[in-house]
């Protein structure tokens, strides 16, 4: 072996060259191993509920997962067969109503917050604070609120519309917050550039800033939808339930979450099986929405 450096071969006499090999017994190394093990264990524990829930729902729901489930109405209590077609359609309709209300209002509110708010008044800070409080309101309170203003007065009463508005109240803060964040990420220079080629404020926002922020806004919207689709409490006393197919937004409507709540507590085997199947469908719908949200965010502009 040749020595490349100018150091003579017997340099160990003059320099105490220590081994660079890792020593497991060192206390700092031991600490590392223990902490890594602990955090790995925590990950497992955190994932256990998710896996168990999915597993349990799947095992119990999968044997009723057939074509009838998606096309038939629920049978009368005690009878077998039937499906949950009305509840699937109902959930889609109620969530669509909620999105139609909360998305435009939420996004416009976020545009105001990030583009026009601020300045000397700092009204935007109060609005953000308010939105955060709204986000923390328990969902049943949103239900009671809509019950008070839309159901109790008798018009429209228990209805898809009331359910949709209740869910919109829950979706609104999520949409405002995520859209606000998404717009703030768009660099200031882009706004200047648009203004510098002679764009007005709204031309800048609608044609340059908003398109750049759309992927992130869509994520927020899908997450809000996924959350709202699973809500039960606010729907129980707004959308109520219906054993029939959808017949207008001013009438009570069946939804998956309320169907699960109603049927799971009945003492009849067929209904309990339907509740399990409905849970599986609901979980899959929410999962699908979340996955779509993930895929959409991947195409980030900034």
């Amino acid at each position, binding site marked *: 072996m040749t020595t490349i450096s100018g150091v003579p071969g017997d340099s160990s006499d003059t320099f105490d060259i220590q081994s660079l090999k890792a020593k497991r017994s060192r206390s700092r190394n031991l600490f590392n191993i223990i902490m890594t093990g602990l955090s790995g264990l925590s990950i497992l524990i955190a994932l256990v509920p998710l896996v168990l829930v999915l597993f349990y729902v799947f095992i119990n729901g999968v044997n009723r997962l057939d074509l009838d489930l998606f096309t038939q109405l629920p049978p009368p209590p005690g009878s077998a067969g039937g499906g949950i077609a009305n509840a699937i359609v109902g959930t889609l309709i109620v969530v669509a109503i909620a999105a139609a209300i909360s998305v435009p209002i939420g996004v416009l509110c976020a545009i105001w917050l990030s583009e026009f708010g601020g300045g000397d008044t700092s009204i935007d800070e109060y609005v953000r604070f308010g939105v955060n409080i709204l986000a923390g309101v328990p969902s049943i309170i949103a239900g009671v609120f809509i019950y008070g203003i839309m159901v109790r007065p008798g018009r429209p009463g228990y209805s898809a519309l009331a359910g949709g508005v209740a869910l919109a109240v829950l979706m609104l803060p999520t949409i405002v917050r995520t859209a606000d964040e998404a717009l703030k990420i768009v660099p200031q220079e882009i706004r*200047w*550039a648009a*203004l510098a*080629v*002679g*764009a007005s404020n709204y*031309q800048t926002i609608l044609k*340059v800033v908003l398109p750049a922020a759309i992927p992130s806004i869509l994520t927020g919207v899908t997450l809000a939808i996924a959350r709202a689709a699973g809500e039960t409490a606010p729907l129980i006393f707004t959308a109520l339930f219906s054993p029939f197919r959808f017949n207008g937004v001013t009438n009570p409507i069946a939804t998956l979450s309320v169907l699960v709540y109603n049927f799971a507590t009945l003492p009849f085997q067929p209904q309990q099986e339907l509740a399990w199947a409905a849970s599986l469908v609901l979980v899959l719908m929410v999962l699908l929405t979340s996955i779509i949200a993930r895929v959409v965010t991947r195409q980030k*502009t900034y």
Partner: protein
Amino acid sequence: MVDTMPMTGTATDVVLRAKDCDMYYGSLKAVRDVSIDIPKNKITAFIGPSGCGKSTVLRCFNRLNDLIESFRLKGQMTYHGQDLYASDVDPVEVRRRIGILFQKPNPFPKSIYDNIAYGPRISGFKGDMDELVETSLRRAVLWDEVKDKLPESGFSLSGGQQQRLCIARTIAVQPEVLLMDEPCSALDPISTLKIEELMKELVQNYTIIIVTHNMEQATRVADYTGFYNAQVVEGAGGKVGYLAEFGETQKIFNDPTLEETKDYVTGRFG
């Protein structure tokens, strides 16, 4: 109008004129007593140490500082004799005539084509858009590099190409003046050289003001140079910038009147 300050000495048209301008951010005076005439179809460079207000003055010329809530201007700024800050002046119109280029290339998150077409489209351009896009890209000496990938994102270009794309975007709305705020400071030397050559081309049709920290750049491209300096304000704890000296680039760099200018251009401070 009284011509109080024939600083340039030559018989060129004045496009932009600042007269006794003070600029404030909130209660803080950032720049004081700026009076300057910007001659037509010439390149004027603004040089000076950081925080001396070069960019602030530059952005005043197309009212970009309006976007900063606390900003205030005292004094008069005119464009061909029209008061830029008169109450009936539309800042959007001002910015169409007086384009600006920023330090960091900032293409829109759109295709190369749409980056150019955006400005003309929103200002109601009726002619042949393809032709306008091509002309603008040709003028920015970018056409040959991008003609085969116009539908691709503006972000797919290199930094120097992006900056030329921004120049093309700015000249597509056919402004008269181009303001450049350190347009080359984020670019490599070769891209910088390309932009400088481009400026010399463009100056035949446009009036250019460039803020630069690179003194060689000023001597290479500028016909006129304004040297800004900053002085500490007694008690306030801040600095206020002012236009120390303005004249032909030749004179500023070789035979400046003021000692501070001489110190700066010879690299003794700054």
